[in-house]
């Protein structure tokens, strides 16, 4: 989808949709589940629109959405990185709990 061809109001609607995570007719539940990725898309896609392009009326709101998406994304990245590091490091020591938390368990190593 080429952002160049969209009128500014539609750009704003799209940015809001991605920020809130409401895609098409699905309920927020799905949106919340994929939020980090939606926020990443928001930041990458609308970055030029929000900060680089010359000002237009909707740009302020788009800027807000992009900033908030960016913050949310950073938070998720921090949480996930911490959890993944802890899990990878301590899974072997947790024994049974570690095995029940795993989907595939590597063969031949603890």
């Amino acid at each position: 989808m080429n952002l160049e061809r969209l009128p500014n109001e539609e750009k704003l609607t799209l940015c809001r949709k991605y920020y809130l995570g409401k895609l098409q007719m699905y309920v927020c539940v799905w949106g919340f589940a994929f939020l980090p990725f939606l926020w990443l898309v928001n930041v990458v896609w609308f970055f030029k629109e929000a900060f680089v392009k010359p000002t237009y009326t909707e740009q302020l709101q788009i800027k807000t959405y992009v900033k908030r998406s960016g913050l949310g994304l950073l938070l998720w990245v921090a949480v996930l990185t911490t959890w993944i590091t802890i899990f990878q490091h301590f899974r072997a020591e947790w024994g049974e709990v570690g095995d029940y938390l795993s989907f595939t368990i590597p063969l031949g190593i603890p």
Partner: protein
Amino acid sequence: RGRACGGLVAVVSPCTSKLVTSIQLFLFFCLSDVSCNSVAQKIYVELNNTVPCVRLLNATHQIGCQSSISGDTGVIHVLESEADLEWPLSKGPNPPYMVLLESSLFTKSIMMKMKNASSRVAGVVVVQKTSPPEFSPHTTCPNENTGVYTETYDHNLAHCNTTVWNPRGNGLSYEEFDSPVFSLKEDNETEVIKQCYFDHNRVVNGSGLQYPLCAMQLFSHMHAVTDTATCMRRSSMDFSTSPVMVCDPLGGYNVCAFIRPYNSTAFGHKENESVVILDSRAFFLEDSTGAEGSVSGFVTLLAAAQALREATQEAPPTRNILFAFFHGEVFDYIGSSRMVYDMKNNMFVIDLDNVHSILEIGQVAVRSGTNLFLHSDPVSRRNNTVHDEVTNLVKNLQSSTAGLNFSLVETDFSQPLPPSSFQRLLRARAIPGIVLADHQTDINNRYYESFYDNAAHLNLTYPSNLSPEEQLEFVTDTAKSLTEVATAVARALFKQAGGNNSQVNKINADPKTVTQMLYGFLVRSNNSWFQAVMAPELKDILQPNPPQYYVGVAKSSHQANALTYLVQYLLANLTGTATNLTQSQCKKPDELPNESTYLYSYLWVQGVVPPNSTQRESFCVRTAVRLVKAVSPAFDLGDYISKEYSTWTKSQWKFIKARIFLVASRDLEMLTLGVGVAVLFTSLLVTYFVRTKADVLFSSVREPNNAAY
């Protein structure tokens, strides 16, 4: 490498018709599956006759060896002496090394030094040559935690405090190694390896080694890790459609036969029945033939069973006799603990109250002198009834050696029992019993549980001019001495079971049977007698080597290992009766009036080939021999950290292989990689430039045409 390059040159020939023909030839070979991967065959030499060290786990430990998932590669180094270890461990300039050593250097000190330097030693390959004077990789006190001598039973006798049964044991089998350890026999493949080493890897005049060097790669990646509880838990968590089994419990089948069979579906206590158990253990491990460790015992038992057949059929004794061959005893008494568990839980045709006494045949072939020894348990003998029964059994045994060339001596009263299946039965109930062995204190077997415990250890020598069939019939001295032991055991058992004393002297074991069994189990299992007693569908078990002895995993289908089938069919042949049933009747004997599958099992065996014919005279044997599943009760109970029962499991693996090839130096590899990456980036840059400047590069040709228009 030169030839492979030549092949490539042929394909890239400028002439198109030649190119087409080459491609057609290549496709033809690929489709007909003849030499599709000929480049790989030119590089690698596969080694086929290898025995790897695998990983075993129990409730607390993992033992054995593990390789990395993509194999371990190392430059081959043939170790000449213990001092030569410095080269792979510190001095050698091309680590990691794959150390090749002869069996005389396969000692604990060398292996532990290599274990500690695992960054420089990629793996170990042991070539089996001459036997060292003594070598036992088992522990000094076998099965010390699962026998009867625990702290509570008798504090002074626990943990081999009074007698260390295997003083030569170095515990090497129970160590854990991070690198693969393989074992090779001395044959053509070993010669190829040594030739490769001498051609490429020898240090000449102290100067450095020239690449390319000869290297070996070993693959033996094991799936299981930590201990049995972990791997059983991981095996049972199946998230995908096909769950991955990570380890299997060890086990197999016990072979049991009663003289007077019981209804095999009626389990539990039998009123007024008293049974004397004669058993021997099958301590098998890896590549070990266990000649003295187990074959001596169960061959004697089979001969005694044969000797008793006539007498017990003519004049059945008052008590019944059970011949039991327990499987997997080295791994914390798998077979005997299973039988005791079944008896206690009414899953066997008799129970512990029915057992009157026990006679066990231990290691009996390596005598120092003319005596054999009778071991008993001092703790249970403190009870007067047990003591009287044991004394009676000793008396029966000692009187049975009249007229034979040896005598039976009781061991010191305070000495405990050696490691034996009888200990597991004692653990459940104080039953009177004796273990017969050739050693008075520690065992005479210098190669306990190692691959040197073979025919040569028993001095099984045949005159060199005999053919294999003549060797089968030749009665060796070892066979003669075991025959006498079998005769004494059979007579004693007959008396113990309450048989008529006048019949005793007619009981004699047959030396021909004994020597044939020793030949079949220790030299060559594919001989005419074994072929005659086996079933037609099992004849592939018989090989020109001794049979495979490892206690395999307990397969869910009714598949026992080679040894179990051999013992089953031999016992059937020696104690059963030949019948006139046809093959189809043999499969469904219940339809006949006098036959019953509740009491007997019916086996169709190949039979002998008569002199002037090629057809075998197969027939149906009616026998009381049964196979009883021998898997540790810990797996039925789901108690994988059990201290009571064996918890041994064996890891699974995807494939195990070994191969040798030439390696180039690391510098050359890095250079090749660097050149490749450079070519990649250069081509990317060139493409980018050509793309951006495309109008400049390609427009100058078109301009004159544009000008014309």
